[in-house]
């Protein structure tokens, strides 16, 4: 036993895990952005502005959390955009300004999100098709259904509902704080529960996971269901933020939800990375947008800057990926 403890201690401390390296990198980029912002505009560093940035990252962070989980298993969910669109029109359309409907409708919408996600997961597991295809197909169907329900913004929300998005606790947005807590909770669950480790295992080597008797199918369905859940929460948040749902509200999230995931260091082939990186990635993107607005740069340059930041964040990363 005594010899154990000796050999149990690693001879050398591993210098820097990839996740830590990535966090440092994002931290550095954020620091650069803040430094530039502070130089060009004295209002940039005001707490009110930083609180805005904190709030503005909320929706992207939330979708990207679900996306992170699917990516960790080596999958991807390209139905999130359409799902958010559909759920947002259902939320505001069914609540329609009626305060009594808020709870039942939100519960229903969350349930529906989980259901759609479960369906995605079942498609991936049972049909044995690549998740990209399954979820893309599902996305088209959901978008069609959203447009069947309405072709224009519908319904509305009762007073107070918008505090989900605009309410502040100690100067910080309620939604933002909630998302921060959700991320921490998910990160702990991923690290400290068997299911969490199984998510990593499945993404690391699906075949091995099957042979070792892990519940690969259940885990796969679970992450897509979770993605559906977080899409539903995003939809509700957006309704609070926009005051109503619209049939194209989510469209942009389909691809953009992947950005913070990968910028944050989760590898698309699965099995590696940390959801807290995703959160940092979302903050980084929100901060970048804020800075560009302060710099008064035209759209075209904003786009170029966004593209370059994505490249910069990933291209300096030297770890080898297995495949797309």
């Amino acid at each position: 036993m005594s010899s154990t403890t000796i050999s149990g201690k690693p001879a050398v401390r591993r210098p820097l895990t990839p996740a830590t390296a990535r966090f440092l990198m994002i931290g550095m980029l954020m620091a650069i952005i803040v430094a530039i912002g502070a130089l060009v505009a004295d209002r940039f560093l005001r707490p009110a502005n930083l609180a805005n940035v904190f709030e503005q990252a909320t929706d992207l962070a939330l979708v990207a959390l679900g996306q992170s989980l699917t990516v960790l298993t080596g999958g991807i969910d390209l139905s999130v955009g359409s799902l958010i669109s559909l759920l947002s029109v259902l939320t505001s359309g069914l609540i329609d300004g009626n305060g009594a409907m808020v709870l039942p409708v939100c519960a229903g919408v969350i349930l529906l999100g989980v259901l759609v996600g479960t369906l995605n997961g079942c498609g991936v597991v049972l049909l044995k098709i690549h998740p990209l295809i399954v979820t893309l197909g599902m996305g088209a169907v959901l978008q069609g259904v959203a447009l069947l329900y309405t072709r224009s913004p519908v319904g509305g929300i009762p007073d107070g509902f918008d505090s989900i998005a605009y309410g502040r606790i100690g100067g910080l947005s309620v939604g933002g704080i909630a998302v921060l807590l959700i991320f921490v909770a998910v990160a702990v669950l991923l690290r400290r529960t068997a299911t969490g480790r199984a998510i990593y295992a499945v993404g690391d080597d699906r075949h091995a996971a099957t042979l070792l008797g892990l519940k690969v199918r259940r885990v796969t369905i679970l992450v897509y269901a979770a993605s559906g859940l977080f899409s539903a929460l995003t939809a509700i948040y957006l309704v609070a933020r926009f005051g109503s749902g619209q049939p194209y509200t989510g469209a942009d999230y389909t691809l953009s939800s992947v950005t913070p995931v990968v910028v944050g260091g989760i590898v698309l082939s699965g099995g590696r990375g940390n959801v807290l990186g995703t959160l940092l990635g979302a903050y980084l993107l929100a901060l970048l947008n804020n800075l560009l607005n302060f710099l008064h740069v035209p759209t075209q340059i904003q786009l170029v800057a966004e593209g370059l930041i994505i490249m910069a964040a990933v291209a300096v990363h030297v770890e080898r990926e297995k495949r797309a």
Partner: protein
Amino acid sequence: MTVKAASGQGFAAGTLNRSSPPLRDHALALLGRYGIYLFFVGFLLLAGLLAPSFFSRSNLSNLILQIVPLAIVACGQALVILVRGLDLSVSSVMATAAVAATSFSGHDADVLPIVLVALAIGVMTGLLNGFLVVRRNVSPFLATLATMIVLQGLRFGWTHGAPSGLMPPLLRVIGSGTWGFVPVNLLVLVAVAVPLATVLHKTTVGRRIMITGGNPLTGRLLGYRTDALTIGAYVVCSMLAAVAGLVLGGYAQIVDNWVGKGFELDSIVAAVLGGFALSGGRGTIGGALAGSAVLVLASNIVLLIGLPIQFQIILKGLVIVFAAACYAKR
């Protein structure tokens, strides 16, 4: 020596006896290979049944006009998928090529420079994508997403927000003209797909791409220039996207900023429906063409039956999942 050879034959014969493949396996293998064509034919019949006007010569010719641009992109996309990649920047390349085309005088004399500029845009984008993927190990999804965004920014910068100007008449003829009922753009597709299919399926370069795509390490140890092959795939893909951008731009006289919008995902779906595995190393160009046709057909049928736009989107989604479930296993 002779004795050994004899026993070798006996061994081989013994193995042959052991292999009695069930009919089902054969059927499945065939379905995997030719499923898209079956699906395509089935779709044609269904369309003819549901909408009598489907087989009208003008509708068929319209269909081809619409299939061709997607098919061209899908060919390039297929090539990238073959080497385990993905190219999300194709739509941005298409729009940029089309926008560049309208930035000239609008006369036929400019067609050659236009084509050269478009191809140059393609080559540059492809090189950037390939460089990021091969040399920097960036995942293709992200690398091409980033170039897509950057290219869009540059395009906006160039056009000041919206393109203006005319497509030269020649490009318009190529994009939307017909000879009799044969669309001219079909020629472009033939000119693109036939050489590509020949190279891919009949030459050593194609074989090298196939092997490299299936297993990059093996390709490297076989002395193939795997990096060049991979970057080449991205370059060809972007060049084809640029060509498709010109064809699609010529299809309608006026070009907007979003020529080719949605083609990035549609082309991936078309290639996958056509039998390309996203894990690389497998697929045929014919399949990619059929995959593109199936996607366009799905939208056309809904319009012909007179269902509202929503069903067009829904049907497309169902077709994707159903077709993939039938034969495009991962």
